[in-house]
C-alpha cells in the first residue's frame, strides 16, 4: 500500500468515525433488505406467528402514496417492539419502535408506499415474534418524495 492511498484511507476512516460515533444504532442490514423476508430476518423475526392481537388501523385506499397514515398497537402482553414492513416497497422495512417501561405499544405515523401492498406489523413479546397484515390500495405511488 503506498503512502497516498494510506493517507486517503485514514481520511476516509476519520470521516466515517465521526458520524458513526454520534449515531445511535441503526440496523443497516434490515433497512437495506430488499425483500420482506430479508427485512424480517434482519430484525431477528423469523417465522412470526400470526396474531389477531395486533391492531392495524389504516385506510383501505390511499390516494396519495406519499402520505399513508398507519396506526398500530399490540394487545399481546409484554410487547416490547413493533416493526412496520411495507411489503412492496424497494426497501420494505419502514420503522421499528422499541417500547420500554412507561410506554404503551402504540404508534401512529405516516409512510410512503410505492404501490398497493400488504402492510405487515411485527410485534416482539417475551422473546417471540407475532405478525399481522393488512392490504392498502395505493392510487398514486409515493416513493419519489
Amino acid at each position, binding site marked *: 500500500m503506498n503512502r497516498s492511498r494510506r493517507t486517503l484511507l485514514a481520511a476516509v476512516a476519520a470521516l466515517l468515525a*465521526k*458520524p458513526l460515533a*454520534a*449515531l*445511535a*444504532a*441503526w*440496523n443497516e442490514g434490515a*433497512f437495506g433488505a430488499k425483500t420482506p423476508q430479508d427485512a424480517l430476518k434482519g430484525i431477528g423475526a423469523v417465522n412470526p406467528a400470526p396474531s389477531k392481537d395486533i391492531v392495524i388501523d389504516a385506510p383501505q385506499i390511499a390516494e396519495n402514496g*406519499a*402520505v*399513508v397514515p398507519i*396506526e398500530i398497537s399490540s394487545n399481546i402482553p409484554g410487547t416490547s417492539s413493533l416493526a412496520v414492513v*411495507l411489503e412492496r*416497497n*424497494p*426497501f420494505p*422495512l*419502514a*420503522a*421499528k*419502535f*422499541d*417500547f*420500554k*417501561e*412507561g*410506554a*404503551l405499544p*402504540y*404508534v*401512529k*405515523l*405516516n*409512510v*410512503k*408506499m410505492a404501490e398497493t401492498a400488504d402492510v405487515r406489523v411485527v410485534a416482539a413479546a417475551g422473546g417471540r415474534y407475532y405478525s399481522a397484515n393488512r392490504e392498502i390500495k395505493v392510487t398514486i405511488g*409515493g*416513493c*419519489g*418524495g
Partner: protein
Amino acid sequence: MRATLAGGNTEVRVLMTHPMTTAQSGQPLHFIQNITLKVNGSAVIEAEVSQAVSRNPVFSFRLKGGAKGDKIEVAWLDNKGESNKIETAVA
C-alpha cells in the same frame, strides 16, 4: 409537539421538519434514522426509521400514566449526522 393527559395515559404528538428524501427521488438520500422519546430524562421509546417515513414526519405515541408538568423530550438524528431536540411539558 403536544403532550396531553387522556384517559389516564399521556398522548404525545410530535412533528419533525425534515425532507425525508428517498433514493428514488433523484435528490440526495436524506432521512431521519433514529428517534428517542424521553420522559423526565429517561428514554421510554427508541425508534429506527427509514426513508419510507413521509416528509415532515408526524408521530403519535402513548405513555402509561403521566402527570401534568412531566417533561417530554423527542430527539432525532438523520443519516447525515444532523440532529434536533424538541421539548414540552405534559399539559
